[in-house]
């Protein structure tokens, strides 16, 4: 069966040129970059080369890049490290209700430690009210943490405006750019970002490597104590091969930033328009003109998202669902909940996230498989009646 992968916001395949560049660092150039001898000397320039490549992608300076193990580590380090370092100055964090769990759960942890956290709401399109954000800033505010792009809906936040606000009030600004970096232009100078997390496996590097950008002059307490690696900001032997892979992936992403997002946007819009015209009573989630090029999140009234995913999976199509009755919550994602999506409708959400390898034929195939798959589930749903009040009400809300 033809396999189609439309879950690139979950992870991506390692790019062939990335894998090729990594391989020597498992065998011949196996040294610990902290070692002074010949083996260490093989590895350390590769780390610094990767650091330059990552820095170039986000317009940072090399010394501002700290290698981590993943996006979640970067998020934890930014939040916990700031709280620890700035405890004499204040104890208030401003974030949003739609952040990744790596940010939200860390904030909840910090709340138990006495930190005050403001969770800003979003509107029905998933957008923030910047006036509200500014009003939330107090003399005790030490950090604003807003993601660059939402992982579920792809909605892009006005990072430049938030950066300006943060600078104006002299509050540190952290952005989780895990879904954005390498997919849309990310410039820490232009956006006046102080801290930024990025993860390799979303852009064709392997799992297990990421970075936290730390603007010069923004000290953080480390999460991992030990050796002197990363200027004592993150101890632990370097994941040399992974870091080399991340460097290559960042370089390739930067080279393709003029072409790939445009192509992916065309394919995503074709998928969206096809679904809108072929399937009645659906809802596209997230502000239409303000999304990542690759992300499409929809609700299909009357059915449950995971059932649709399994049906697509049986046809070789991999997508993902914000809804999961395994999550233990009401079966709706916290992002759609914050966007005030009707709870029944919210359970029917499915996310398609395209990648640089997605083809026009892939989209054709999805548009062929999806309508009958949705119809089959609707036919067995007690909530489905075409044009019925339930779904009409759901959709109008």
């Amino acid at each position, binding site marked *: 069966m033809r396999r189609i992968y439309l879950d690139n916001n979950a992870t991506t395949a390692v790019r062939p040129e990335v894998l090729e560049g990594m391989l020597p660092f498992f065998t011949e150039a196996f040294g610990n970059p902290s070692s002074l001898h010949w083996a260490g000397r093989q590895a350390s320039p590769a780390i610094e080369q990767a650091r330059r490549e990552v820095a170039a992608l986000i317009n940072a300076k090399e010394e501002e890049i700290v290698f981590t193990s993943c996006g979640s580590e970067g998020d934890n380090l930014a939040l916990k490290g700031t709280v620890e370092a700035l405890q004499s100055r204040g104890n208030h964090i401003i974030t949003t209700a739609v952040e990744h769990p790596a940010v939200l759960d860390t904030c909840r942890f910090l709340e138990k430690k006495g930190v005050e956290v403001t969770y800003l709401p979003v509107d029905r399109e998933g957008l923030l009210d910047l006036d509200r954000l500014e009003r939330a800033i107090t003399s005790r505010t030490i950090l604003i943490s807003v993601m660059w792009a939402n992982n579920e809906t792809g909605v892009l936040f006005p990072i430049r405006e938030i950066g300006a606000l943060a600078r104006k009030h002299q509050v540190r600004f952290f952005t989780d750019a895990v879904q954005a970096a390498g997919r849309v232009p990310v410039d820490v100078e232009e956006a006046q970002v102080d801290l930024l997390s990025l993860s390799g496996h979303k852009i064709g590097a392997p799992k297990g490597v990421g970075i936290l950008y730390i603007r010069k002059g923004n000290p953080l307490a480390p999460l991992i104590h030990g050796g002197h690696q990363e200027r004592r900001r993150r101890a632990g032997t370097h994941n040399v091969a992974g870091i080399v892979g991340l460097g290559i992936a960042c370089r390739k992403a930067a080279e393709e930033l003029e072409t790939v997002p445009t192509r992916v946007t065309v394919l995503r819009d074709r998928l969206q328009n096809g679904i809108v015209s072929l399937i009645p009573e659906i809802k596209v989630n997230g502000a239409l003109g303000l999304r990542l090029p690759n992300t499409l999140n929809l609700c299909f009234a009357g059915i449950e998202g*995971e059932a649709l995913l*399994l049906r697509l999976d049986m046809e070789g199509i991999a997508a993902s669902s914000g809804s999961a*009755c395994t999550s233990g919550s009401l079966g709706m994602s916290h992002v759609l909940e914050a966007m005030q999506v009707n709870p029944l409708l919210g359970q029917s959400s499915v996310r398609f996230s395209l990648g640089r390898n997605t083809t026009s034929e892939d989209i054709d195939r999805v548009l062929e498989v999806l309508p009958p798959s949705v119809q089959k589930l609707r036919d067995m749903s007690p909530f489905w009646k075409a044009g019925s009040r339930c779904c009409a009400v759901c959709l109008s809300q």
Partner: protein
Amino acid sequence: MYSEKVLDHFSNPRNVGEMADPDATGEFGSSHCGDTIKVFLKVEDGVIQDIKFKTFGCAAAIASSSMMTEMVRGMTIEEALQLTNEMVAEALDGLPPEKMHCSCLAADGLHKAISNYRDGIR
């Protein structure tokens, strides 16, 4: 994640649909995740002659609904009342543990329909 039987009943659910003139119907929704089953019964001399269902939910919910209808067709309503969600899950060669509490609602829907039948509610 799912057994072959679950996937089979999910892809080709048995007895799915509505009934023109049921002797009773019963609806049961999980307060946990919103999964909902609606059961339609035809009963003759205390025996379930025909049964149909409609279910909103994940694959586990749909498969357990389908399996339940196969298990109880031809049973007396007393026998059908003995059926538990666990027995349905067992007949499907098991469900993932995290699916048991919310998606296995078929027996509950059946019992609701039988209760409505006894109360004379269509």
